[in-house]
């Protein structure tokens, strides 16, 4: 087995974006880490870097995380130019160091978008997504308890499709990966999730109109159909959701329920 695929401990050269809180800009700073187990997650590698920084009396790298199992959506960073790193359909916390050959240089940057101002180092303010969510990412009718299964039949594929959209963890990787910093995949997933199910229908038109209005007001870009969002999405949300959002937007124009 080559040194690259072996289980031996590894070393890496890191280039990490450092930006002090409140600063207008930052820069890439070089670090070296060693004694990295290939089974370690990317975040554990950063933890190890931070411990050595603390020992040297330096400021640790600020990076966000919570669940560390791919469900909370807080941990996203851009690794070697790709949101959540080089492996498709996973979050940064699920990324293992075995994906990086021993001795590699790894560049780590924050998600970059005007609508995601940098708070510190690798942490960005993604509250713009919350504000979009607040404009319609819910149902305000009383949906009651689970209905009798045959009262409102919903085809299996429709149900699955709505579930696929609902899998979005609001991580913002779609925005980070998009050459236009557009949030269409996230908003499209929210719109589609509700458009497919009867609970979403009473507020169907207002939802898409309000969420799109907020998305534009937050300063996200427009979608040019580059499809880079789908490639970066840890939940494999398809650009079909963007097509659906456009159909829903047109539908709302004619006021159809």
């Amino acid at each position, binding site marked *: 087995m080559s040194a690259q695929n072996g289980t031996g401990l590894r070393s890496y050269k890191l*280039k990490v*974006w450092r930006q002090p809180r409140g600063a207008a*800009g930052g820069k*890439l700073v070089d670090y070296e880490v060693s004694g990295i187990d290939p089974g370690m997650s990317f975040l554990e590698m950063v933890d190890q870097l931070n411990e050595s920084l603390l020992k040297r009396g330096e400021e640790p790298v600020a990076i966000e995380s919570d669940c560390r199992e791919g469900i909370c959506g807080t941990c996203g960073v*851009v690794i*070697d*130019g*790709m*949101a959540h790193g*080089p492996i*498709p359909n996973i979050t940064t916390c699920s990324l293992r160091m075995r994906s990086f050959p021993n001795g590699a240089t790894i*560049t780590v*940057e924050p998600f*970059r*978008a*005007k*609508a995601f101002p940098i708070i510190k180092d690798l942490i960005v303010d993604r509250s713009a997504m919350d504000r979009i969510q607040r*404009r319609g990412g819910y149902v305000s009718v009383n949906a009651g308890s689970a209905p009798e299964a045959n009262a409102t039949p919903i085809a299996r594929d429709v149900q699955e499709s709505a579930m696929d959209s609902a899998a979005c963890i609001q991580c913002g990787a779609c925005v980070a*990966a998009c*050459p*236009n*910093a*557009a949030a*269409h995949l996230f908003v499209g997933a929210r719109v589609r999730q509700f458009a497919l199910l009867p609970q979403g229908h009473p507020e169907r038109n*207002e939802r898409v*109109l*309000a969420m*799109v*209005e907020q*998305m*534009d007001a937050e*300063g*996200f*870009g*427009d*979608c*040019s*159909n*580059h*499809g*880079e969002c*789908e*490639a*970066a999405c840890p939940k*494999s949300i*398809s*650009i*079909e959701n*963007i*097509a*659906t*959002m*456009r*159909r829903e*937007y*047109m539908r*709302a*124009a004619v006021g159809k329920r």
Partner: protein
Amino acid sequence: MSTPRFQLRSSIGKKLLNGLTGVLLLLFIVAHLAGNLTIFVGKDALNAYAATTHSLGPLLIVIELGLAAVFLVHAGSAISVWRDNQAARDTRYMVSKSKGAASKQTVASRTMIITGLVLLAFLILHLWQFRFGPTTPAYQTTLPGHAGEVWNLHLIVVETFKNPIWTALYVVVMILLGFHLRHGFWSAFQSIGALNPKLRPIAFSAGVVFAIVIAVGFLLLPIFVYLAPDPNAGVLGLVKP
């Protein structure tokens, strides 16, 4: 907060306009190529084609104005989308890479504004050269089966493309048109919500074929006129001694 309304100025609205005009331009470009192919038949075929379109009279003016509006809305919405996108990322990545697999990002998709602006500049030149080309008596000719004289569009075409500089310029622009269409073809249908998971990969791949057919179709024409010993006779002129 005020009740939200459908807005053509929204990010979605702009792409609906851009996509809808894009689809119309796709239809236009196919029709335009079909008409141009008469050049390969020869002088009379092209001039007859021109005479037929001119016989539409006021209807032609209506079609032309409609087409001009489509171009303006297309370019206007595209420039507006581009400006929004420039503003949406104020700091660039130090390293940026496509994550591949599901991505539909291509050189073509990243250069739409460049190829588009070239097409806009080309359009003005092109109209100037041909639509508003010379109509003096020297550019009138006869047409078999046609009473009186007709406009000799064919002569303008030959005069233009016997000049290697014009031929080279047109060939380059047609290649750029091919790039614009490589992304534009499938993107237009996606923008107006016309694709589903089954159609999307088909439209994406068909974009390559469409782009090549259109670009090659158009660029063969100036090359043919430049090389043909007797363009008046069409492709037959190539085999005649």
